């Protein structure tokens, strides 16, 4: 039992994702308030781990951890948490963090708060605000017990506060990783040859409101006139109207263009994750209550087809 915070960082291709820094930054703040230490945990050896502003960093190295393996990573984290019994274990509510956080919670019988947007200290414990029900409700929850797991949405905290140069302590895996039931086979890279939307300064992004594959052309035309590239929300990609490489969001790409023009995207949290950093966000949506209007800089309750066509005439 301690007042420490353990941050489970994530990395891919030798780089940490932004959320790792965000969490470390927040963990420091919480640790300070609780009178504990913020420790970053790096699972896997293939990455330079001396990059966090944490009080300490532990890097677990093992051949079985060279690639993300949900089973192996979960086992390692479980062992570390058991050993250190921290006050809070922080995960990103991300495609990797989501594989472990709830599993660990059930495994150890400790509470888990997911979809976390904010964590604060209150009366010696923590209170987590969670953005549930598709962003329609915010819940404030207080975990009971000695240890709590918090899985935070990416982009919830500033990343800068977590950046630093704490030297990592390398350790061997605290658990036996032989006999895993899950084996990494290979990476599947996105189909090459397409434009890189993360490198664009302007994006015209289309959502389910675009209605069908045949209407993508309209967005393409508009983008061409603006010197932009077309990106999309996930349903558009799932429907096969645009390739995966154009998907913005949690399971897509994170973009930070100068202009992000949104046509028929409702603004689900998973999408917001990928584009909140854009400098100018303009949203067109027929639903005046679409959550995207809480995030966009400019918005209009209008039919995207009409606006796009009218813009084409003006450009």
């Amino acid at each position, binding site marked *: 039992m301690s007042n420490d915070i353990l941050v489970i960082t994530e990395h891919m291709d030798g780089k940490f994702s932004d959320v790792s820094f965000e969490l470390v930054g927040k963990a420091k703040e919480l640790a300070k308030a609780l009178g504990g230490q913020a420790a970053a945990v790096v699972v896997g050896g293939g990455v330079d781990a001396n990059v966090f502003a944490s009080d300490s960093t532990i890097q677990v190295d093992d051949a079985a951890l060279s690639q993300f393996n949900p089973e192996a990573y979960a086992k390692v984290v479980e062992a570390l948490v058991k050993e250190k019994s921290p006050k809070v274990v922080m995960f990103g509510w991300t495609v990797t963090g989501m594989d472990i956080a709830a599993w660990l919670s059930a495994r150890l019988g400790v509470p888990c708060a997911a979809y976390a947007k904010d964590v604060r200290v209150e009366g010696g414990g923590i209170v987590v605000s969670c953005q549930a029900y598709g962003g329609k409700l915010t819940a404030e929850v207080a975990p009971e017990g000695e240890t709590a797991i918090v899985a935070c949405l990416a982009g919830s905290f500033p990343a800068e506060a977590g950046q630093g140069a704490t030297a990592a302590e390398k350790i061997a895996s605290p658990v036996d990783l032989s006999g895993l039931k899950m084996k990494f086979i290979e990476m599947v890279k996105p189909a090459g040859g397409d434009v890189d939307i993360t490198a664009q300064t302007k994006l015209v992004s289309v959502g389910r409101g675009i*209605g069908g594959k045949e209407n993508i052309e309209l967005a393409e035309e508009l983008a061409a006139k603006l010197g932009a590239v077309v990106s999309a929300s996930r349903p558009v990609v799932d429907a096969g109207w645009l390739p995966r490489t154009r998907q913005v969001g949690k399971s897509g790409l994170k973009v930070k263009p100068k202009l992000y023009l949104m046509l028929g995207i409702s603004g689900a949290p998973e999408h917001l994750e990928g584009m909140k950093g854009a400098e100018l966000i303009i949203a067109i949506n027929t639903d005046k209550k679409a959550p995207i209007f809480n995030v966009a800089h400019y918005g209009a309750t209008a039919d995207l*087809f009409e606006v796009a066509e009218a813009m084409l005439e003006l450009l």
Partner: protein
Amino acid sequence: MLTPIEKILFILLALVSAGFTFHGFKTIIDTVRKGRPAPELKNIPASLLKAGVTVLFQRTIFKARKALSAVHLGLFFGLITYAFVNLFDVLEGLIPNFDLTYSGKHLAPPAWTIPLINIYSLVSDVMSMFLLIAITIFLVRRFIVKDKALTYRENVLLNPKVKAGGQAKDSLIVGVFVIMHVTAHVLSQAYRLTEGADPFMPFASFLNSIFGASETGMHVAWWVSIGWVMFIIPYLSRSKHTHFFMAPINLGLAKQNPRGQLDPAIPLKVIDGRKYDPGAKVITDLAWKRILDAYACVQCNRCQDVCPANFYQRPLSPSALEVNKRYLLKEATFGSHPDLLLAPLTETVISPEAVWSCTTCYACVRVCPVGNEPMADIVDIRRRMLIDGFEIDSGVQTALQSLATNGNWMGKGKRLRGRWAKELEFPVKNATEEPVEVLWFVGDTASFDERVIPNTKMVARIFHQAGLDFGILYQNESNAGNDVRRVGEEGLFEQLVEQNMAAFGKAQFQRIVTTDPHSFNTLKNEYPQFGGKFEVKHYTVTLLKLFEEGKLTVKNKLSHYKVTFHDPCYLGRYNGGFTAPRKLLELLGVEFHEMPRNCENSFCCGAGGGQIWMGKVAPGERPAENRIKEALSTFEKHPSDKKQLFIVTCPKDMVMYSDAVKTTGNEGKIEVRDIIQLVAEAVGVEEVSPIVG
């Protein structure tokens, strides 16, 4: 006249011809009988008789193409006359001295028959001339002018034989037959005139003055004339011209149920305990009536002319559907491809894309001179595609899923259905909680579409002001299911009917009023089959009545408006609701102008049959855009400074046409309004909100 050898030859030929003819018609009948049971018809002899009279005066073809139809009428009478002519020609051949020239003097008939003989001679002679002219017009139309109405769009699925000009070949054969046959007949008469001109045969006498009389000529001409008949009658049973025989029968057996009542997905009558899957995959899954349609089709393309989907360059042509069915049947029964009877319809007669383009506007059925129902086939094909798990348009799938869970297609929660009513300045009764006189069935678009809700509220205010005792079902109302059924989702339709019937069961009311023609149609025509025994009125009728009873009075005449009115398919063509809206407009005092396509002939907005659920499609002028242009050109004939309004009585129309005004760039020139907005202005209810967005 004929020599004994000729007579034997003739009788042999006649037997062979009769044999082929018998085989031809038997094949057709057997094929028709392969179809599924059709809804029971009542009083068949009477309706056949009625059809006979209709055909005699060619009434149905005059629904379109008036001039050509007149020529067709002539052709038709010509051919009827020729049935007698051929009979007499045969008698002339077989009975010595049977000869009707010169008032039949070689026959030495009783005196009283002489005027009859003269009339016959004159009529047949003149008719012959007329026939030659009429058939020439038709041949010129098809082969020289190449009337576009007789061709199909490139994207329409066509039987390869049709593509290769099969229909033209048929027409040519029959055309040549008529010309040869008639000419030969007249010549055979001309060669008979050994004593110069016969005053009752001006045409034959004229030919006689050129060619003279000739015994050999007479024989040759007779054989040509009758020989052709022996060939053509069996040929007809195998060609598109079977319509000579099948059209009247088909018309006599045409739909007796209300237009707005679709035939069930599975026949109600079961023969030999057979199990049927819903809808149609192969041709024999269609009701026998739908198979007969193919034989009756005259391939005139009138249905294609009025089809909004065809107008919108979609790959749908109702006539191509019938023609393809016909060629498929021909190849399967007279040809050597019986396997075609088991070929999916979506590969042989209509493309899947075409199936999903139909707006179920009923225009094709209404216009068809022979009582065909191409639309019924399309709905049946949709039904089976859905059951067979055919991948459907994602928009339709989303709509259906929402309908199944929420009872509306807009993905809104059930509870929100009556939210608009809560925003009014007076309470709207919940008909499931207290008795009301009028149960207002609101419908999805009017309940949920932000753009239409202002009009919905306006209707409530006017009902309220008129002191009408009305209520709504709030969350107990579900989509009535009209379009769901027409998309082919019969099961979901039944589910919605059950939900609504349950809601009706909880309510006490005297009659139902709807603001939505689609709901109106199914509530009125289809719910009775599910035990729905209630009176259903469209709100235009209710409003008119409120005026007539003095409960609403026009305070401000609206003479500053110049308006036209669009008949929604499901109010007008389907249910004959033409007069109430027009009378209302008259009462309101607007300047009213009728568009060329009005009432029965109204042009679909393009939203029906589930089209409104589909992702935006195809480029090209949409039906609604065309309609707005039609309205504007109507107004152009009556120039003035008055504000020009396009009046609708259907929430879907409000959405479709407001959009079309924008996309055609006619904002400012014409405005779309629901009739309720005019009523509100005239009776002095505030807050006339035009459509926004």
